[in-house]
């Protein structure tokens, strides 16, 4: 937890701005003006967090994720995205996403939900996990108010999607749980206009807040980091059980389309016994039709001393998952590869052929195999 106040960066920034303005415009620049400009607009929290408990001593207990941070006045939670200000718990990045861009939905990755569709991706800074291999650490491992951000209210976000004819909004890259309130408010607005919501999350969250978002969402790509609690604690700064609970809750209590992603990190979570356990759990708890992706690790952030995941490891993982009974198993971050395609489970025909995020061919006919007419699970239109 870090203490809130005028940090070094904000101070230097304000100082620089003030001096420059003073030089350029003479006496018109004031320190107050400088501070007002240099301090990010997000420093004033604009929305209360829905799930917290306030205590008489002015501290709050966050109720969003299992970290259950107890914060004194001015303190920021482990997600870096929520702050106790005067005994009230506020969302820091609300209305100020640090990422707004257009992406193919395959980038989440989601393979069985509107293949080839483009989505408006919105993310705010912060994450309640601290994965050593985080690939968006510049945003995810920072406080939202210390990033360069956009001004975008939920209504404006939905209007922007409509204006640019994007009928999917995605929350990914950083952790949507860290900006749950903002994501939820966008989702509510989006639902009214028929825009679909897809969420890429690590699901380290209590079921209630998750269900609040899921009520307005259409699909989830959930990163199940591994199947070993030690790995979760050591590498990701989280725990396995709450994640499994959240995934099961989503599966049992919502109608959202679900895909599971496992990033295979050499020497950490690439033991085939773990992969097998993970695949068997997915099969038993979520069913054989839930797609499972094995993504290739690339050395990043704090895990730069490891090699990339060997392709045969990913292939073995796929084989193990199929042995466990899963029907749709994919590899990610390697292309071209046969395991990036979608096959008919009956006749093994390629129904969707991919090269990276590009759809080379989509042979589905109304969600069915063009050859044997077997339905392929997913949301295809």
């Amino acid at each position: 937890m870090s203490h809130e106040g005028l940090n070094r960066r904000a101070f230097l920034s304000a100082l620089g701005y003030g001096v420059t303005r003073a030089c350029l415009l003479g006496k018109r620049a004031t320190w107050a003006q400088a501070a007002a400009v240099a301090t990010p607009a997000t420093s004033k929290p604009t929305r209360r967090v829905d799930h917290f408990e306030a205590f008489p001593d002015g501290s709050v207990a966050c109720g969003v994720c299992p970290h259950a941070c107890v914060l004194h006045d001015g303190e920021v939670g482990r997600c870096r995205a929520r702050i106790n200000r005067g005994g009230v718990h506020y969302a820091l990045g609300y209305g100020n996403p640090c990422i707004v861009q257009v992406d193919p939905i395959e980038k989440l990755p989601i393979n069985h939900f509107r293949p080839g569709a483009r989505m408006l991706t919105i993310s705010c800074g912060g994450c309640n996990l601290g994965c050593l291999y985080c690939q968006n650490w510049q945003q995810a491992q920072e406080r939202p108010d210390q990033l360069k951000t956009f001004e975008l209210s939920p209504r404006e976000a939905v209007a922007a999607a409509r204006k640019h004819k994007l009928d999917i909004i995605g929350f990914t890259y950083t952790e949507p749980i860290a900006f749950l309130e903002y994501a939820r408010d966008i989702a509510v607005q989006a639902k009214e206009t028929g825009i679909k919501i897809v969420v890429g999350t690590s699901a380290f969250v209590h079921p209630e807040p998750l269900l609040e978002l899921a009520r307005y969402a259409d699909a989830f790509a959930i990163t199940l980091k591994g199947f070993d609690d030690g790995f979760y604690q050591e590498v990701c700064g989280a725990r396995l059980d709450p994640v499994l609970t959240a995934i099961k809750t989503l599966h049992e209590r919502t109608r959202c389309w679900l895909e599971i992603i496992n990033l295979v990190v050499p020497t950490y979570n690439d033991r085939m016994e773990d992969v097998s356990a993970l695949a068997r759990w997915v099969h038993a708890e979520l069913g054989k039709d839930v797609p499972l992706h094995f993504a290739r690790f690339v050395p990043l952030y704090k895990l730069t001393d490891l090699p990339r995941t060997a392709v045969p490891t990913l292939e073995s993982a796929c084989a193990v998952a199929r042995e466990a009974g899963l029907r749709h198993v994919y590899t990610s971050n390697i292309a071209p590869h046969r395991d990036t395609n979608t096959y008919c489970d009956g006749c093994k025909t390629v129904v969707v052929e991919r090269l990276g995020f590009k759809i080379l061919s989509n042979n589905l006919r109304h969600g069915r195999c063009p050859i044997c007419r077997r339905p392929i699970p997913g949301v295809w239109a």
Partner: protein
Amino acid sequence: MRRLHWSATARLLGGLLCLSGAMALVVLLPTARAGDRDWMVGSTPKAVSDWQEQAQAADELLSCLGLTRQQARALLPLIEQSAVVHIEDYQSTAELHDELVPAFTDFARQDSLNEGFTPDVERRTAQLNHQAKLAQEEKARRLLALEDQATELLTPTQRVFVEEFHPNRQRSAPPVDARGAVRRHLQAAAAQAQREAQRDELTEAQRALRELERPMNPTVGRVGNLLLHPAAADPLCRLAGVEPTHTMRGAAQVLQQGTPAHPIDRHREQQARVRCLRTEINNWNLINGLHLSVEQIDRVTRVYDATRPALAELKSRGRGPDARRDLAAAVLELETAVEQVLNRGQREVLAEYKACLIPPKNLKDPVRVGQANDSSQLERFLTRARRLTPQRTDAAIDELLAKETEHVGPLPASEQQERRTLLRKTIEDARRLSDVDFAIQKGELAARIARRDRVRELKTEIAALTHDRGLPGPISRFILQPEFIEQLRIRGEQLRRGPLAAGR
């Protein structure tokens, strides 16, 4: 006598190198295993430029060219300067090769494991490769300047003759001073070239591509390579009636014997090693990018092995029209068989593949799932430019145009103003957008200002024409090469053994 002695030694060494390479190939190939990559080095030592052959070619050219004594004397100072260029190039290249060999070896070893590169190995290889490229360009630039001057000294007929000259072909050419024969030859060659160009779209596209690529990859022409080579100094001096200078002799000595620090035999060996390592790395890059399965690898190698004897037999029939037609048909059949093994994605990767040392981003580090930052160069340019003042915008546009010239060649003068206007207008449009709208639309704006890549277009056109006519395509160029197939077998072995050890 001395020259003959050195030449014979060099040939003997070259022969021994080839022989040892061939023996290594025969002995080691069947047992090649993952990690046993040393068999590659020296197995395909292409003949390095041979002094004796150069001298012979220069002799032939000069005997046919009909240079006057005055012309010969005017050319001598240029040869003198060319000798300096060659001496300096020998020294710098030899030193560079000593560094390139270990760097490329490390790089190739990591490439063969397909687990990415350690930053130091990648950086060192990229730096040295860049140095080698700069050295090559520098040599070419210096020789091109001399070549321009030398060309000025020749008559138009002589210029065309030099450009058309081919040592092997000219051996059966008309007698030395038969000017009429030379002229007839030139006229016939020119007419033939014209006919071919008129009827051949492919030739035209290839020529256009050469023209476009020339400024980016300066290459010395025949005047520079034959007439200004230090090996031409002796016959030219004889023609001019003067003695070769000290520098000319020095160049002859360096190019035949090397320097004390870098003897010629070692230099040639290093050159051959670097060439082999480059091929090996290129092959690994493609193999890594294709992600062939064990079954696919087995099928490709089976197809190759099954057709190799027939191909060898066809090749041995010579270069007559029938033999060439039969060979082309067989190669095409082989290509088709291999093409059927590849899936559509692999075919796309192969079609776009360009031989490279450092793999391009899409092969080495493709955009990953869940990765936020993947904006293109033009998107980054627009993001920066929309915040600049008009004065600085022009500077940014100049910078972009200079970069483009470096990467895709210069823009025709007629299009430069048009492009500048388009860039300014797009930047203005980008400025008018809100931050959010710009973030959403920057991809479209970048697509609007993406420069037409004529080189790429021509390459695509050439590939299509080549394919339509049943001429060898990328499958022949890259996959159906003995070295590639052997590396493919190694990858097959690696895959069969299961996941590569990852430090567990």
